[in-house]
C-alpha cells in the first residue's frame, strides 16, 4: 500500500519545510520514500509543488496517486481537490471547497487559523501536524523530526511552531479519527537524500578538496547542504563568476594534485573546459545540474556518466572521481534538476568506497625514489627526462603535480589524437557492466538514463505485478564512451523497445542508433522537456504492449 501526498503552495510559505519534515517522518519509520519539489511556471500559478510517495516497499516515483492534498490557496483547491482520494487539507478562513469538488470518500479537513488560534504564517505547520496524524504517525516522532529540521531556530519560535503542529495534529484527529492510514512501519531508520545531496556526499567520500560552483547552482540541494559543512572535511568551496571559470578552476585544482569538482547549471557551458582537460589529460569532474535533456558532447578520452536514478548519484560521483584520476580525463556527471531535486530513501550510504588515484611518476625528491622506483613509476633520469605525455599502450602516462624536483613539464592541449584514442578504448574497458533489470524474456525493454530510470522502474513494477514477465529495464549509465558492444546484446534481443527520456527531440534514440545500429522506434518523453511522469510512462508502455 502506498501513500501519496501532494502539497501546492506559494513560494516562501513553508512548503519546503513541510516536505523535509515529512520525508524524515516516514523514512525514520522504516518506510521507503520518494519525493520531489518543483515550481510551476508563472502561467500555471507559479506555485511550489511538493509530491511524495511513502510505502513499505521500494518506490520509484514521487506522488504516485494523491491520498492527501494540502491546498494553500483557492486555485490549488479548485484544480487538484478532485484528485485526492483521502482528503484535502485547507485553511478554512481563506479557502472554500466547492460542493461536489471532492471524490466520494475524500474528507474536507478544514484547519482554520482562527479556530486553531495560530498565526496565519504558521498554517503550514498545522497542516504538517494534520498530515502526520492522518498518516498514523505519533506526536513524538513529529516533534523530533520538526526539531531536527529547525535546528538553530530560536527557542521561542520553535515552541510556537511545535504548538501550531500540535494544534493541526489534534484537529485532524478530531475531524477524522478513523482515517489514520496504517502503513507497515519499523524501527529501521532509512537514510533519505536527494540527488543533489548524493552528489555532495559522493564528493566528500571521494576526497574532493575543491569545489567551484557556477552561477545558478547556489540554491541547488548540493550547495545548500555542502557549503556550510565543506570546511569540516577540508573542502574549499568557491563560487565562480561563470560556468567556464568554475570548470577551469577545478582543472587548476586537479592539475595541482587535488580532486576538483565543478558544479554548473548547464553542461553546454562546460564543453570548452572539458575539451581542454581532455587534451591536456587533466582529471576533473564536472556535474551538471541544469535543465533536463541529454547532452552527450564529449570526444575520446572523456566520460559522461548519467546516474541511474537519484539513489545512484552518490555511487556515480565516487566512480566519476576514480575514473577521472585513473584515466586522467574529465568526467561529466549528467544530473538534471529532476534528478538533483528528487529525494529517495536508500538502504545504506556507501561512504567508504575505495579511492583510485591512478598512475604517478616518482619524483626525484621522494625519499628512496632513485633506489626503488614504484611499479607504476617512470621516474626521470639524466638520460631520460620526464615525459608527462609519454606514449603508452593504454594511453595513460604517469602524471606529476607541481612542487616536485625533476618532473617539470608543460601541460597543454597538444596531445596526440592516437594516444587519446587509446585512452578512450582503455576507458571503455574500465567501465562497470551495464545490467538489464527484470526478466530477460520480457515483452518490452525500456531504455533510458538519469531521471527516466525512476518512471521506467515504476512501469516495470506495475506491469510485472503478480509475477508477470512483461517489462524489463535497461538503464544506460555511460553515455560516453558508449558501451556499444555490451549494450548491443540486450537492445538487439529485445522483443520491443521503448526509449524513455525527458528530451522530446530524442537524443538518446539517436545516440543508441549511432553507436549500436539499433533503431528505437517508440519514444516516451516529458512534457516540454520536463521530467517523465510515472503514470505517463505506464500509459505509453501499455500502448506499446498493445501495438
Amino acid at each position, binding site marked *: 500500500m502506498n501513500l501519496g501526498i501532494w502539497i501546492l503552495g506559494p513560494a516562501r510559505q513553508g512548503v519546503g519545510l513541510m516536505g523535509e519534515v515529512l520525508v524524515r517522518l516516514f523514512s525514520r519509520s522504516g518506510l521507503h520514500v520518494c519525493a520531489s519539489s518543483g515550481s510551476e511556471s508563472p502561467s500555471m500559478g507559479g506555485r511550489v509543488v511538493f509530491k511524495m510517495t511513502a510505502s513499505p516497499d521500494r518506490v520509484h516515483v514521487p506522488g504516485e496517486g494523491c491520498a492527501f492534498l494540502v491546498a494553500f490557496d483557492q486555485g490549488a483547491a479548485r484544480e487538484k481537490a478532485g484528485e485526492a482520494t483521502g482528503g484535502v487539507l485547507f485553511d478554512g478562513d481563506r479557502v472554500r471547497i466547492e460542493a461536489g469538488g471532492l471524490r466520494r470518500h475524500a474528507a474536507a479537513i478544514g484547519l482554520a487559523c482562527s479556530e486553531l488560534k495560530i498565526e496565519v504564517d504558521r498554517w503550514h505547520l498545522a497542516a504538517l501536524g494534520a498530515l502526520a496524524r492522518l498518516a498514523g504517525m505519533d506526536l513524538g516522532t513529529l516533534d523530533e523530526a520538526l526539531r531536527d529540521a529547525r535546528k538553530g531556530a530560536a527557542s521561542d519560535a520553535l515552541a510556537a511552531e511545535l504548538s501550531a503542529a500540535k494544534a493541526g495534529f489534534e484537529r485532524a484527529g478530531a475531524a477524522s479519527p478513523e482515517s489514520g492510514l496504517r502503513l507497515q512501519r519499523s524501527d529501521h531508520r532509512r537514510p533519505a537524500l536527494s540527488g543533489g545531496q548524493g552528489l555532495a556526499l559522493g564528493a566528500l567520500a571521494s576526497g574532493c578538496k575543491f569545489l567551484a560552483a557556477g552561477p545558478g547552482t547556489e540554491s541547488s540541494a548540493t550547495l545548500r547542504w555542502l557549503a556550510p559543512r565543506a*570546511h569540516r572535511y*577540508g*573542502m574549499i568551496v568557491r563560487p565562480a563568476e561563470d560556468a567556464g571559470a568554475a570548470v577551469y578552476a577545478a*582543472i587548476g585544482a586537479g*592539475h595541482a594534485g587535488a580532486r576538483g569538482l565543478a558544479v554548473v547549471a548547464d553542461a553546454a557551458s562546460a564543453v570548452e573546459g572539458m575539451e581542454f582537460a581532455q587534451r591536456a589529460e587533466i582529471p576533473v569532474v564536472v556535474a551538471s545540474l541544469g535543465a533536463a535533456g541529454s547532452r552527450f558532447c564529449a570526444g575520446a578520452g572523456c566520460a559522461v556518466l548519467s546516474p541511474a536514478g537519484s539513489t545512484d548519484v552518490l555511487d556515480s560521483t565516487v566512480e566519476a572521481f576514480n575514473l577521472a584520476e585513473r584515466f586522467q580525463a574529465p568526467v561529466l556527471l549528467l544530473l538534471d534538476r529532476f534528478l538533483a531535486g528528487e529525494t529517495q530513501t536508500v538502504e545504506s550510504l556507501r561512504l567508504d568506497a575505495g*579511492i583510485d588515484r591512478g598512475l*604517478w611518476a616518482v619524483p626525484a625528491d621522494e625519499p628512496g625514489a632513485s633506489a626503488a622506483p614504484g611499479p607504476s613509476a617512470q621516474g626521470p633520469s639524466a638520460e631520460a627526462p620526464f615525459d608527462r605525455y609519454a606514449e603508452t599502450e593504454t594511453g595513460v602516462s604517469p602524471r*606529476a603535480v607541481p*612542487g616536485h624536483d*625533476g618532473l617539470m613539464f608543460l601541460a597543454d592541449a597538444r596531445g596526440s589524437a592516437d594516444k587519446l584514442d587509446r585512452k578512450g578504448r582503455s576507458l571503455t574497458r574500465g567501465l562497470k557492466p551495464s545490467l538489464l533489470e527484470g526478466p530477460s524474456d520480457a515483452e518490452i525493454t525500456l531504455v533510458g538514463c538519469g531521471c527516466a530510470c525512476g518512471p521506467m522502474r515504476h512501469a516495470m513494477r506495475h506491469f510485472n505485478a503478480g509475477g508477470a514477465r512483461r517489462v524489463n529495464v535497461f538503464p544506460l549509465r555511460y553515455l560516453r564512451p558508449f558501451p556499444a558492444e555490451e549494450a548491443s546484446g540486450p537492445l538487439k534481443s529485445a522483443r520491443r523497445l521503448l526509449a524513455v527520456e525527458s528530451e522530446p527531440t530524442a537524443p538518446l534514440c539517436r545516440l543508441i542508433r549511432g553507436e549500436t545500429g539499433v533503431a528505437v522506434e517508440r519514444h516516451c518523453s516529458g512534457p516540454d522537456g520536463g521530467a517523465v511522469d510515472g503514470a505517463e510512462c505506464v500509459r505509453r508502455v501499455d500502448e506499446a504492449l498493445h501495438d
Partner: protein
Amino acid sequence: MFPVPVRRPLDEAREFGPEQFGASGPADWCPGCGHAEALEALKAACSGLGVANKDLLCVAGTGCAGSLPEALLSYGMRVPAGRALPVALGAKLVNPDLFVIAVGGEGETAGPGLGHLMHAARLNADLTFLMLDSGSRGFPADERTFEPAMLALAAGATFAARVLAQDSAASAAVMAQAVQHRGFSFVHVLGSCPPGAENLRLQLTGSAAPSPQGGDGTTRADAAPLGVLFDAANVPSYEEFDPVLSRRGAAVRENLGLSPKDIAELEACFK
C-alpha cells in the same frame, strides 16, 4: 601513491640563480617585442626571491604571451585564451605553497579574460598576473580608452604596477615586489609588437603603430606612469579568510578518505 609536494625553503633555493629557469626563449617571439625581456625579468625576480623552479607554476593563455611557460623551466600550463586566471586560482588554493604566476596577452585579457581579471582582483587571492601588452590589440598609447591597471585596482586588486618590458632591471624589481605581495598583484608589462604585427594592427584599427619610441617622439611610457602604482601591504589575502586554508593548510596534503567519525557524522545527517 600520490606524492605530496613540499616547498623548498627560500634560502636554499636562492643559490640556484636565474639559470635554474632555463637559458633560451621560444623561437616564435620576434626580436624586440618585449616578451623575451619580460621572461628574463621574471626569472631574475623569482631567483632573487629564492623561488625554486619546482615550486613555480606559470599558467598562460594563448598567443605570443602563451609561449612564456614554454620558455620557463618550471611547471607550466598553456590554457585557452583568457582562462589563465581561473586555472591559476584553482591550483593556488589547493596548494598555497606554490608560487603561481598567471600570464595573458592584452587581447585575451581585455576579451574573454576580463571577467576573470575583475573577480581575481576582487577575491585578492595570492596570485600574480602579468599582462604582456604588445600594443597590437587593445591598449595603444594614443587610444587611452581602457586602462587595465586602473581597472584591476577598481575591482579590488591590492597591488598594481606598470613596467616597460625593455627595461628588464626595473621590470624584475617590480615583478619581485608583485610576487612577494600577499594578495592579488597585477603587472601591466608594456611591450611593442614589431612591424609584422603592426600591419595587422593597422588593418584592424586603422591607427598608427605603437612603439616605445613613437614617431612624434613620445613613448608608451610617456602616456602612463611606470612603476608600482598601488601597493596595499596590510590587506589580508583570501587565503587568510578561507576557513579551510586558514586552519588546515594545503588541500593537496589532506588524506582523501573519510574517517569513521566523519562517516558516522554524515550518516546521522540523513537518518
